[in-house]
């Protein structure tokens, strides 16, 4: 079990959740609508993935108002940030391995 793929965080390693976590990793917080536009998915799908990440303790959800309009702000928790950093390290070592293999072939 020495291959880095065994260390991949399966919770992050899906297209939608990766985009969400990557976006939140580079911001202090992002408003729901902005995150939806960045990730390019529907409101309902975004809500579903937010619930998954929130349950895992990776995402913090803060609800508030802008005038009379409700707004939801999302941010990564320290656990989520650490998980993303580890995930990127693992991906980097996997891609480096595969690049090395391609060079030697």
């Amino acid at each position, binding site marked *: 079990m020495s291959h880095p793929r065994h260390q991949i965080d399966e919770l992050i390693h899906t*297209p939608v959740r990766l985009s969400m976590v990557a976006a939140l990793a580079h911001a202090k917080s992002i408003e729901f609508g902005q995150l939806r536009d960045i990730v390019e998915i529907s409101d309902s799908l975004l809500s579903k993935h937010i619930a998954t990440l929130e349950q895992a303790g990776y995402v913090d959800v803060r609800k508030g108002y802008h005038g009379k309009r409700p707004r939801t702000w999302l941010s990564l928790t320290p656990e989520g940030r650490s998980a993303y950093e580890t995930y990127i390290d693992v991906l980097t070592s996997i891609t480096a391995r595969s690049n090395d293999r391609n060079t030697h072939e």
Partner: protein
Amino acid sequence: MSQNDSQPMNPHLAMSEAERVKYQVRRKARWHGWVWLAVAVLTPAFLLGTQADLVPRAQPDDRPFVVRLLLDGEFWIAIGFGAIAATLWILETRRGVIGRETARIDRPATWAYVTAMVAVAVLVIALDPVGTPWWFVAVSFAPSMPCVFAAWRILRS
């Protein structure tokens, strides 16, 4: 991006998606740096514009106060800067991405700016400069320093 994707992805694809998103988020977060830069430019323009006799001033006479106010150049400068400040504030409240560097630098930069503005106001009241002496020109740029620093930090992040 597809709507029903919860399947794992290729590592190379994952890396490129992470990069794409990082670029987009950083670009959106940098907007705040331009606001700081605008404040850095507008503040000395406002201070020098109101102090220098560049605009016609209403002279004390028998006309009603409102008429004299409307004829006063400084009043229109203040209105103009107020409108710009209000527009920036409205745009700020609508931003949906708060960058990490913005979150770090905003509060100290705001305090430094407010402190510098209060210092300028105290100096103007105490020394009552006529026109724009060299020291006034110098201090009118002081509040811009924290703004330029904040803008630089945010725009390079």
